[in-house]
């Protein structure tokens, strides 16, 4: 009888794949990004005019979550080369050799096709098509094309992250309406100051420079990044009032949004004015931390208004 232990110990076994544990595949889905997609999609479902059976709403959320996970897996497949040279991403399953790039591609593609078909067949074609476009946009337009080509990459990437409430809304109405576009614009405008504050605070420039990614702080420098943070923060304030003008939200949301916007702008002004030393670092950390709270409270307030049955404003536009 042959002793197979020598073959088992062979280091070349990893070349055949099949080494990934369940946890590695879960990591491919980027669970934290997925949780944000689920939450904002839930708000999209709640804010949309009309009703949806709770079971179908749950199915829509699962399909959107799986679609978001597919984006994560496909992103890790394509970005395996740059993930391997950045400290922040070095521990991901593909650079660690736990999962082969081809396995990540197969896993992501299966989930992408499955989630789009499930959403399109169980809810409606518009929601399924929006999810398909989101995955296409995130992988082809952002990951493959613009991430490595323009310093505005995070602005484009932010658009992909802003689609889930639109998809949730479309799951209810079967259409793309101004109200859902307003929810999209909130996340779209929120992403750049959120991410650039993180980039300045954690000083990840060396990582991105090594990977050849033209992030704004790397290409244009911290001063220009601070200016852009302020511009997007100032744009964000009127955008958050769009749901009220469109008759999606009411008085409570408007008051909460105005208060949150004032704090957000104050944080952004502080980041703009302080450029050196621990105070500047603290300002960036403050804006980044508050931006997370800000997004949660904005969307939670929309959800709360709907759950409490508060009456939205009459639409001024739309």
């Amino acid at each position, binding site marked *: 009888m042959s002793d*197979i232990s020598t*073959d*088992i*110990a*062979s280091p*070349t*076994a990893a*070349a*055949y794949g*099949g*080494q*990934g*544990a*369940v946890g590695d*595949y879960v990591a491919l889905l980027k669970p934290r990004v997925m949780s944000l997609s689920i939450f904002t999609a839930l708000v999209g479902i709640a804010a949309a005019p009309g009703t949806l*059976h709770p*079971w*179908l709403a749950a*199915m829509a959320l*699962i399909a959107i979550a799986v679609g978001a996970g597919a984006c994560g897996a496909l992103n890790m497949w394509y970005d395996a080369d740059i993930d391997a040279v950045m400290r922040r991403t070095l521990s991901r399953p593909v650079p660690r050799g736990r999962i082969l790039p081809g396995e990540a591609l197969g896993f992501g593609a299966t989930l992408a096709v499955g989630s789009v078909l499930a959403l399109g067949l*169980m809810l409606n074609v518009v929601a399924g098509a929006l999810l398909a476009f989101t995955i296409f946009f995130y992988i082809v337009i952002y990951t493959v094309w613009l991430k490595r080509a323009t310093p505005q990459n995070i602005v484009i990437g932010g658009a992909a992250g802003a689609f889930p409430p639109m998809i949730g809304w479309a799951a209810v109405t079967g259409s793309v309406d101004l109200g859902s576009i307003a929810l999209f614009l909130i996340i779209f405008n929120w992403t750049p100051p959120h991410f650039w504050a993180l980039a300045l605070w954690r000083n990840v420039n060396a990582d991105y420079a090594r990977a050849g990614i033209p992030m704004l702080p790397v290409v244009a420098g911290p001063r220009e990044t601070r200016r852009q943070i302020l511009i997007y923060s100032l744009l964000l304030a009127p955008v958050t009032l769009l749901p009220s003008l469109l008759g999606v939200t009411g008085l409570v949301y408007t008051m909460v949004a105005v208060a949150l916007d004032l704090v957000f702008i104050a944080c952004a002004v502080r980041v703009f004015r302080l450029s050196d030393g621990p105070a500047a670092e603290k300002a960036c950390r403050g804006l980044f931390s508050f931006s997370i709270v800000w997004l949660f409270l904005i969307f939670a307030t929309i959800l709360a208004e709907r759950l409490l049955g508060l009456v939205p404003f009459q639409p001024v536009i739309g």
Partner: protein
Amino acid sequence: MSAPLPPQPFGPEDLARRRRRAIVMALVLGGLVALFFVTTIVRLGGNVALRSL
């Protein structure tokens, strides 16, 4: 021209990981069957009872 790699059997740890993956996959597929079945019933709603015979 390099010779193709000889077949490499998986070690006990690899086999254990594969078994756990297979169990999770089976649970996910079983869960999907249940989800699709309930969704079909929900979407049918009262239409089955109300259909013209």
